[in-house]
Structure formats: C-alpha cells, structure tokens
C-alpha cells in the first residue's frame, strides 16, 4: 500500500481560516477543514489512505479523505511515496536540466555608477567601508564616468534591451549627484537616441540628498526622474552613521533639501531607503518620521550588508527584533489597506506583488538577468554593488555582454546548487538571498545567506498572512497587482 507524504509547504492562518503556501510552485490555496486536517496529519510523517481514514474517521468519511487527497495531490501539496524506477541521469552533465534563461536575455534595467566618489563617509558603506570589494584608492578605476562612457552605456542599454519597448536607466554612485553634469547630458542623449529607435527610457536615481539644489530639483521634476533618497531616519539615527568626512552628521543638511524636493517634484512618487543596523531598530519611529513628518510617499528598509564581526552588524537577536518591529508596522499596513488607503511601507507591498503572481525564483534577484551594473570605466558587472570588481565582470559597454561568463554565473548560482535551500518552504521568494550579502558574509556569491533564514521565513509568513487577510476581506485591493507591468528593479 503506497504512502502519502506532504511536500514542502507552509500553513498559515488569516481571517480565521487556514491557507497553504506551496513550494516550489509558490501557489496559495485556502484549505477547507478536511484538507487542513489531512495536511496536518501528514506533517508528522507519511501515511496510507487507510491510515488517514482511520485517524480521521470521527471527522470525515473515507470517501472525503480520498477525494481531498486527490485534490491535494493534484496541486502537489502531497505526493505518493511509491517506489519508482530510479531516474538515471542524462548522458551529459549528470544532473537534471536546470531552467536557465536563454543567452540572449533582454536587459530591462541598467544601473550606471556615474561616480565611485562620495561626499559622505557612512561608516557601514559597502562601497567605502571595511567590506568594500572595489579598490578605488589606487586610481585604477576613474573616479567619475566620462560623457563618452555614459553615451556608450546608453547605446549598450538600447541594444541589449532588444525587443523591449522600455528600458530603465538608474543612476547610482558613490554619490550620484557629484557627477550631475554627465547625468544631465546622459538623460538628454538617451531620450534622443531612444526616440530615434522608437523606444522609451525610464530614468531613476539614488542620492543622499546632500547636493540637491533648486536647479537640480527642477531638472529631476521636469525630466520625471524617479528619486530614491538614502536616509536612515530622524536626526540622531541619521547622524549616527551617515556622516561627512569630518564626522559631522548630515541630517541638518539633507532635511531642508528633501522637503524642497518633495514640494517641487510631484511627477513621480519619491521613496526613502533606510539602512538598519544594530544601533537603531526603532522601525516605527523611523517610518513615522520619514513618511509623516517629512512626507515621503514610501519608505523601504534593508538590513546593513556587512561582515558578521562589525559593530553595526545585525546579530541573530537583532534579526528577531527587526522581525518584531516589521510585523508591528505591517499590521498598520494591513489596517490601512483594508480601507484602500495608502500606507507606504514598501517592503510589504513588494512582497505582496510577488506572492500575488506566485513568483517562484530560480535566482534571488534580477542581477545578471534583466539587470546589470556599469562601472565608471564602462565595465559591465553582475549588479551595481559589484560594478568595478574584476571577478564579477560580464564584458564592457563597448564590446557587449560576455555571454559565456554570464551563463557560467547563472549556471552555478541556480537554486538547484544551493543544497541548504532544498527543503525550505520560503525558497520560491528568497532563492538564497542577495549575492552581495553572501559575498561579504561568506566570501562567495553562490553561498545561501544562512544567517537570515529565520528572518526570511518569519517575514514571508507575515506577508502571507497579510495577503490572506486581504484576499478574504478586501480582494479588490489585490487587483492592483494583476498584470502589473514590470517596474525597474529597486536598487540599494
């Protein structure tokens, strides 16, 4: 008699009823009582249909057990443990084929590092701090991208975007606005060239806001450039790490400039991007300050990327605390979303969109797929965080993408290679986590980020519960994620 076994799944409750999230399909189903009981029973170990019917005889008929099992099997929540012929590996390679995108994959987002210089000296910075990858001190890489390289990058982007009608161009640094002259000319050039080719380019940038001034703000508003501001919160939080070279805090410099930007630049929603460290976890207070007192449209949080032994590194307890604070803010998000009101906690909204579509990732992010970074000298890299690192170079904007290097990277970073992830139910959304985080923590981009597994599962569970609540109590809210056009990948 063959046994039934539960496959990887996560049960959660929302609006008073049970749901299940399935891995690796990333499907969300609501369960009725028999389905919930059968799955619960199989969580303790495999069982035959008869055993299940026996265990549940006071709750349902044998027919109901069989019918429910067949539905659970149909969506692959359970499967039979029948002895099957051993699958011999295919002749070449020796493993079952991975799904790897075609070599000619269109580029959707190019992140242009227009400078690697910065007028701040944030203690935790991955570009400048103790964990930096790229050595900018020896002068091998130019400090600023030249107009010529930027133009070549635009040509590269338009060429590599292939049949996509829209290409996203994100300016990044260092401090992006230190190279405003090139940025401005690049936007003009890209608009002109895209128009000639019948395409569109969508522009965005990330800045620390210290160099914003009326002419720049006017330009960004006029050109509809999406702006993300790196800011950590109220004065005492911001000034702890986000300091000038002389050590003085940057809050008093950036605050009036940001207010000016928010007042003038109304063509795109402007977001704040917060780095969380061991020193400050008051998520609610940071959020309220940035969202309500300053007026950002949305606020996103990310834990600092750093080696584990740094003082600002987040410990295991720190991740627990962060999860608690995130949950608190997520509850507020849910309350407002039930009334169709905007909240602005962008971490939740991004995850909800992924859950809604049922995204199941073979790779943690778009780096090396639809997203590539470009260093100041025109080297193409895995993403902006690796721009300028020789070990993560995929060609140059002049010569094009090194397809073989990119394919080799994708081949070796596929979720199938991350054995630790194979039994985790959160793998469809996490896929092992950020390459750069892994590189800094473990010295290799292919390593799964095991230091934040509990946090990822906890946070995914929170977002699933919010999704479940919304699906029951305000399903209209979720319609906004239907057929949502692909946006530029958020970079930080």
């Amino acid at each position, binding site marked *: 008699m063959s046994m039934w076994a539960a496959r990887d799944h996560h049960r959660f409750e929302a609006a008073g009823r049970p749901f299940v999230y399935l891995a690796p399909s990333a499907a969300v189903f609501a369960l009725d009582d028999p389905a919930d009981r059968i799955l619960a029973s199989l969580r303790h170990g495999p069982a035959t249909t008869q055993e299940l019917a026996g265990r549940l005889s006071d709750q349902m008929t044998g027919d109901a057990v069989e019918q429910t099992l067949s*539905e659970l099997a149909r969506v692959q929540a359970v499967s039979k443990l029948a002895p099957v012929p051993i699958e011999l590996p295919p002749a070449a390679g020796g493993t079952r084929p991975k799904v790897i995108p075609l070599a000619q994959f269109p580029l959707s987002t190019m992140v242009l590092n227009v400078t690697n210089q910065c007028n701040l000296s944030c203690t935790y910075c991955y570009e400048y701090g103790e964990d930096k990858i790229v050595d900018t001190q020896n002068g091998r890489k130019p400090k600023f991208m030249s107009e010529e390289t930027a133009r070549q990058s635009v040509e590269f982007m338009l060429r590599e975007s292939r049949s996509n009608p829209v290409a996203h161009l994100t300016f990044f640094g260092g401090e992006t606005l230190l190279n405003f002259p090139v940025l401005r000319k690049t936007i003009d050039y890209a608009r002109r060239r895209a128009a000639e080719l019948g395409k569109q380019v969508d522009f965005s940038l990330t800045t620390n806001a210290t160099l914003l001034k009326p002419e720049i703000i006017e330009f960004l508003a006029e050109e509809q450039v999406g702006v993300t501001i790196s800011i950590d919160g109220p004065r005492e939080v911001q000034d702890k790490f986000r300091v000038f070279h002389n050590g003085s805090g940057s809050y008093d410099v950036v605050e009036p400039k940001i207010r000016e930007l928010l007042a003038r630049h109304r063509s795109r929603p402007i977001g704040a991007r917060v780095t969380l460290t061991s020193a400050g976890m008051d998520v609610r207070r940071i959020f309220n300050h940035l969202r309500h007192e300053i007026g950002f449209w949305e606020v996103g949080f990310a834990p600092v990327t750093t080696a584990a032994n740094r003082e600002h590194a987040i410990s295991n307890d720190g991740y627990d605390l962060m999860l608690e604070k995130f949950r608190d803010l997520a509850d507020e998000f849910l309350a407002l979303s039930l009334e169709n009101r905007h909240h602005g906690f962008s971490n939740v909204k991004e995850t909800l969109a992924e859950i809604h*579509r049922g995204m199941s990732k073979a790779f943690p992010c778009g780096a090396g797929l639809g997203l590539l970074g470009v260093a100041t000298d025109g080297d193409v890299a895995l993403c902006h965080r690796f721009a300028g690192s020789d070990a993560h170079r995929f060609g140059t904007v002049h010569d094009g993408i090194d397809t073989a290097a990119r394919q080799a990277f994708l081949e070796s970073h596929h979720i199938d290679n991350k054995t630790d992830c194979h039994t985790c139910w959160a793998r469809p959304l996490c896929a092992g986590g950020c390459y750069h985080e892994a590189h800094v923590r473990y010295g290799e981009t292919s390593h799964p980020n095991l230091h934040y597994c509990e946090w990822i599962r906890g946070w995914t569970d929170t977002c699933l519960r919010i999704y479940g609540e919304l699906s029951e109590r305000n399903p209209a809210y979720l319609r906004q994620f239907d057929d949502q056009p692909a946006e530029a990948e958020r970079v930080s």
Partner: protein
Amino acid sequence: MKHLTPINQKAARIERETTAPDDVVGLQRTPVPQQPHFPLGCSLVFSPGWEADRTGGTAGLCQPVERDLFDCHIGCYWPAHVPDQLNHAPSWTSSCAAAQKDWRKIDLVFP
C-alpha cells in the same frame, strides 16, 4: 476543486492547467514526483546485492567508493568506516540532499 480554493494567480493557473479533460484519460501521464532516494545495493533494503539494482537494472553498477560508503551508512547497518554523525561529524552529509546528484559533495573526514 471542492476542498482547495486557489487564491493567488499561480494557484489559479495550477487549477486551470491540471483540469483533466474527461476523454482520453488512458493517454495521460501524471509527472513522477521526486522521491527520497536510497542508494542502490544493500540486502537489507531488499535489493539483490551488488549485481543488479532493485529494479533489476545493471546500469549503475560500477559505483564510486564514496557512494558505497554512503550506501552502507544510510541504507542499512554495516560496520563501514563512515564518520560518526552523532558526535563528530554531524554535518557530514548536509550538502548531499540527493545522493544521485550530490554524492561528489560528501567529503572524507579525518579524526
């Protein structure tokens, strides 16, 4: 479906894609799910020994030594020289999720 309600887009797609048409049932084949794998070749898990595998096949006969070790270690009791996973090498096989694919990752352990 009566007991499961698809909630997200992927679930709806799965329901749509797995709706079997009523005719030509005999020609349909459900995909074979991935099974937990016990390596070949131990008499205690009912296999005829080293000459043939439990399906009667002979294709996998010439086995690498690592696989022999792993087989004795997990499929049955055999006083093989395998690391003591209870005390000294608890994570010896942690990088080996599926032996047929990952056996190269099982390394030697020196006391």
